[in-house]
């Protein structure tokens, strides 16, 4: 069978049954007691998962190679700039080869599962697992084995970033207008992002920020700066005067 990118069927069903999804009440979590003193950390940036494209009339994602390439460049630059302002050093992870590549792939996959679980079972207050109900609790870990991904670097934290942007196409916007006339709410465009910081010594997830409605056009350097500022909202150690962080 030919592999498909995304199935239309989901898009159609979404259009019909999910006019408005009430998204997570909470967007960010920090491990209690965790502080990242400025100018102390070397952060390993794991290759961000970035995908930018358009949203078709029916709600299908249409990936765009050029936009994605621009976004990848802009976001990386904005991330480095934001962290340098905090005094932290950001090193971009090399693409590993051999057994190290397998380890990296496993931990990237594990992180996406972990982040997904945090969003589902922690950020949704009503859906919290019994073991995650204590007030102020944020107890998630990838295990100390994650240190393997930073072997040979001086990094003490790993930063995972993922981002998907679907810009509403003209057809989608028209549909939105006409649907509104028929009292149906149709969302045009979807901009989701997530960033998480993992302590490489213990493997603990010390901070996670997930936002299902982000601002900033990542295709431009200015927009990417705004997006990164939102992604890093509540980043440990960034609780400095707001004027110092990027806008």
């Amino acid at each position, binding site marked *: 069978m*030919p592999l498909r990118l995304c*199935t239309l069927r989901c898009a159609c069903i979404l259009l019909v049954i999910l006019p408005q999804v009430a998204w997570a009440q909470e967007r960010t979590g920090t491990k209690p007691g965790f502080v990242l003193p400025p100018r102390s950390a070397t952060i390993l940036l794991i290759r961000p998962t970035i995908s930018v494209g358009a949203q078709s009339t*029916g709600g299908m994602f249409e990936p765009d*190679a050029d936009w994605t390439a621009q976004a990848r460049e802009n976001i990386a630059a904005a991330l480095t700039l934001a962290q340098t302002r905090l005094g932290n050093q950001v090193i971009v992870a090399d693409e590993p080869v051999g057994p190290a*590549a*397998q380890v990296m792939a*496993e931990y990237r996959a594990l992180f996406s599962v972990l982040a997904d679980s945090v969003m589902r079972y922690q950020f949704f207050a009503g859906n919290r697992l019994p073991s995650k109900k204590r007030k102020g609790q944020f107890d998630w870990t990838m295990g100390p084995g994650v240190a393997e991904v930073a072997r040979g670097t001086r990094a003490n934290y790993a930063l995972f970033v993922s981002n998907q942007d679907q810009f509403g196409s003209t057809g989608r916007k028209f549909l939105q207008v006409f649907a509104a006339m*028929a009292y149906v709410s*149709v969302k045009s465009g979807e901009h989701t992002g997530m960033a998480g910081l993992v302590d490489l010594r213990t493997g603990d997830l010390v901070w996670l920020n997930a936002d299902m409605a982000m601002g900033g056009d990542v295709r431009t350097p200015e927009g990417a700066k705004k997006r990164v500022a939102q992604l890093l909202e509540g980043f440990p150690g960034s609780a400095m005067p707001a004027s110092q962080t990027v806008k």
Partner: protein
Amino acid sequence: MWPGQWRRAAAAVALLTGVAAHAEPIPSLPPYSGAYQPQGVDERGIWMEFDERERSFRDSTVVINDAPLKAYVMQVVCRTVGAARCQAVRPYIVRDTSLNASMAANGMMIVHTGLLLRARDEAELASILGHEFAHFELRHSLHGFRHDRTAGGIAAWASVAGAAAWAYGGRSAYDTVRVARSVQTSAIGSTYAHTRDQERQADLLSMAYLKASPYDPQRFPDIWDQLLDEKDATAHGRRQRSTRYDRAGFTDDHPSTIERTTTLRQLALAMNKPGEDGKERYDAALAPWRAAWLSDEIKRNDFAGTDFILRRMAGAQWSADLLFARGELYRARGHPRDLVAAAGFYREVIARDPTRAEAYRGLGLAQLRSRDAGGVAALRTYLTMKPAAQDAAMIATLIQ
């Protein structure tokens, strides 16, 4: 109308209704230029997404990264589609027990171990890999994406029209909603119909590759016949109805297997081309993997289906590894009669190959569960032969 026009009109109607599918001839091979690069926003976007997925897929633990095995599969691709075309392919062998393979727009070819286990010879494997390559050469991911997008747009507009009729009422509101529903259903149905057509095209082009290759094209319908028999065995074992003669349903993304095998058999017979099946090469290349894949197959919890595969693989002569797999299958189901049968299989394995420690393990466990004290001796033999086995400590607790 002139007679010629009539014929053309009839052909057009037949094409539209899909009647002509059986009569379609094998296409001639399209011209091919190497190192194809994606063109346009859609195709470049799709390739980018698959490139990104391939990055993580390449390093995934579900992929069997064995150089000789990969090289062998690549050789089969090259023998099937030709030395120039096969350069575009990067095969990934995935530990998955289903008979399947798939192809991404960018040349990433995924081959399941379930296919490698079930295909009886190289020609059968070649026909499936040719089919997958046809999806790549015909750019089916791209065309499917575009079709889905158009159909999605139509479905979305139809649902808005329906909602508007519902909201504003009026005399024809009911009719409008009904028409909108029907348009929506057709649009969604057309996406499945489109993938079924793509599968038919890929079958035809695969036949064209087989025609130009050293392989016997009869093996292509053979693998489908075999799949039908296996499904029947599974259905029988589960007390279910056979689906052999079912037509493709609304949401089926492949034509029915019976349609495919019938069409392909006609084409292969018409081609009447002798060819090799490459069985010796195939068996030699996959021999190191068979035991592991059989062990995966047994875990599918499909007793009758797996037993069918084992019996078919064995033919008239049961080899030691197939007998061992059969013993494991029977012991896993574990009815009292299965344990007796399993013990019999293990004994036969031991008679043929007394160095096989796992057969003693299976025999001992089957005997112990049948309250046969002889099992202790068999398990002791297992531990003496393999003192460092992973389950040594656990087995030791059984024989204290």
